[in-house]
C-alpha cells in the first residue's frame, strides 16, 4: 500500500499537466473561432460586445480570398506529389544497403527543415535574382517541395526501418521480381507513412508563409493574404473568418488521415 500511494499521486500530477498542456494547445484556436462572430470590427475586446454572422458573407464574396485559397490548394497539392515521389525514392535508396556517402545524403535531405525556413527562402530568392527568373506558380512550388521532401522522406524511411527485411527476402524466394516486391510487399507496408507524410507535407505547404514570401513575388497564397491583411486593420473581421475557415478546412483531413493510419497500423 505504502508504495502505491505516491505513485498514484505522481500519476495525478502528470495527468493534470498533460490535460493543461492540451488545453493550452487548443485554446487559441477556440479564441479565433469566437472572434469570427464578434460585432466589433477594429478591437479585440473580450468578452465580445455582440455576435454576428455578417463577416462570413463579406469574406465569401471577396475575390482575393477565393483566388488565394485556390492558389494555396494548387501549390500544396503539387508540392506534396513531388515530395512523396522524391522522398520515397530517397528513402528506398538509403534504407537497406550502406554505401559511400549515405550519411551525407540523409543529412542533406533533412537540411531544408533543419535550417530555418528563412534560409531556404532567401537562398531561392538569391537564385531567382541571380538567374533573372520571373516569379511564377512554379517558383512557389519549388520552394515548398524542397522542404516537403524532408517530411516525406522522414516518414517513409522510419516506416521502412520497421519493416522486416525477411518479408522482402520471402517475396524474392517466392519468385517475385523487384517491382512486384515493391508493389505488393513494400508499398502496403509504407502506405500509412505515405499518407501521414503526405498530409503533413500538404499541411506544411498550405500554411507556409516564410519561404513563400521570398518566392511568390506579387502572388498571394492564403497565408500571404492573411499576413498582409493583418497589417491593415480595416480587414480584421474578414481575417477572423478566413482564419476560422483555414482551421476548419485542415481539421477534417487530419482526422481522416490519423484514422486511416491507425487502422492500417493496427492490422
Amino acid at each position, binding site marked *: 500500500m505504502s508504495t502505491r500511494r505516491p505513485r498514484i499521486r505522481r500519476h495525478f500530477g502528470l495527468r493534470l499537466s498533460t490535460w493543461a*498542456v492540451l488545453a493550452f494547445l487548443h485554446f*487559441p484556436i477556440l479564441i479565433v473561432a469566437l472572434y469570427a462572430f464578434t460585432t466589433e470590427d477594429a478591437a479585440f475586446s473580450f468578452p465580445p460586445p455582440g455576435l454576428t454572422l455578417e463577416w462570413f458573407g463579406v469574406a465569401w464574396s471577396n475575390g482575393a480570398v477565393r483566388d488565394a485559397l485556390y492558389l494555396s490548394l494548387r501549390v500544396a497539392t503539387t508540392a506534396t506529389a513531388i515530395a512523396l515521389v522524391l522522398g520515397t525514392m530517397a528513402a528506398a535508396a538509403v534504407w537497406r544497403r550502406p554505401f559511400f556517402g549515405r550519411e551525407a545524403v540523409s543529412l542533406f535531405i533533412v537540411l531544408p527543415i533543419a535550417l530555418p525556413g528563412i534560409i531556404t527562402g*532567401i537562398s531561392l530568392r538569391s537564385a531567382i535574382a541571380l538567374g533573372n527568373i520571373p516569379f511564377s506558380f512554379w517558383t512557389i512550388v519549388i520552394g515548398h517541395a524542397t522542404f516537403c521532401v524532408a517530411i516525406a522522406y522522414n516518414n517513409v524511411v522510419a516506416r521502412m526501418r520497421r519493416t522486416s527485411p525477411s518479408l522482402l527476402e520471402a517475396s524474392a524466394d517466392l519468385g517475385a521480381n523487384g517491382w512486384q516486391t515493391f508493389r505488393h510487399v513494400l508499398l502496403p507496408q509504407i502506405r500509412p507513412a505515405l499518407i501521414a507524410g503526405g498530409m503533413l507535407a500538404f499541411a506544411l505547404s498550405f500554411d507556409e508563409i*516564410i519561404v513563400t514570401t521570398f518566392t511568390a513575388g506579387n502572388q498571394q497564397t492564403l497565408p500571404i493574404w492573411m499576413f498582409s491583411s493583418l497589417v491593415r486593420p480595416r480587414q480584421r473581421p474578414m481575417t477572423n473568418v478566413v482564419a476560422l475557415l483555414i482551421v476548419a478546412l485542415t481539421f477534417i483531413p487530419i482526422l481522416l488521415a490519423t484514422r486511416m493510419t491507425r487502422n492500417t497500423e493496427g492490422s
Partner: protein
Amino acid sequence: MVIESTNVGRIGRISGALHRRPGLRLLLLLGLPALWLVGVYGGSLLALLWQSFFSLDEFSGNVNRDLTLETWGDLFTDSNISIAIRTLSMATAVTIGAAVIAFPIAYYTVRYAGPRLRAAFFVLILIPLWSSYLVRVYAWKLILAREGILFWFVDTLGLNFLLDAALSAPGIGGPSLSASALGQFFVFTYIWLPYMILPVYTALERVPRSYLEASADLGARPAQTFRTVIWPLAIPGIAAGSIFTFSLTLGDYIIPTIIGDSSPFIGLAIYSYQGVAGNLPLAAAFSFVPIVIMVIYLILARRAGAFDAL
C-alpha cells in the same frame, strides 16, 4: 491482359537487371532526389553565398554585381551583433521552455495512458501542429491584447499587480503582453511545442518495456530507473526536438512582426534588408549567421543522438 503481361515482363526484366547491378539501382533511385536537392537547394545556397559578395550602390540603390567584401564588412556592426544575441537568447529560452513543458506530457502519454487515450492525445497534439501557424500566432495577438481575454481574466481574478510587475520588468516587459518580449516568449514556445513533444514521445515510446522490467528486477527504485534508463534514452528525442525549436526561432520573422516590442530579430532583419531596404546582398550575408549557428548546433545535436530520434 496481353498488354499487362508484357508490361510485367518488361518491368520484370528491368528489375532483374537492376537487382544484378545494385550500383545502377542506387543511382536511379537517388539520382532524381539528389538532383533536386543538390541542384535546386544546394544551387540556391551557393547563389546565396555569391549574392553576399555583391554590394548595394548607395546612390542608385541598385545591386552592384562586382565581387567585394564590402557587404560582409557592413555585417559586423553593434546593432547587428545585438540582434544576433537577442535572437540566440530567445531561441535558448524557447527551447528550454518547450522541453520542460513537453517532457511530462510525452512521458505521461507513453507510460500511463491506455491505447485509446494515447491515440486521442496523439491527434490532439497533431491538430495544433497542422492548423495554420499564422492563425495561431494571430490568435495570441487576440489573447494577449490589452482588451483581450488574458487581461480580462487577470482583472477578474484581481491579479493585476502580478501582471503589472511582470510587464514593468526591464528587458522583458512592455505596455501589454502582446507588445512585450515576455509575450513573444509565450507565443514562440506555444507555436513550436508540438515539434518538441513528438520526438520526445517517439524516443520514450522506443524504450523497451523489458529494460524497465530488467531495471526493476535488478533492484532499482522507480526514480533510479528513470534517471539511469529512461532519461538517457529520452535525450536523443529532446535533442531532435530542440533542432526544430532552436532553428525555427532563429529564422522566424512572423512572430516578431505580430507580437512583441518590434525589436528586430535575425529573421526580421533579413526580411527587411531584402524587402523594404532592397539590400539583398546584406540580407544574404546576414543569413549566414543562423546558418553557422545551426551547423554548430546540428553537430552537437548529432552527438546527442538526435538524428536517430527524428
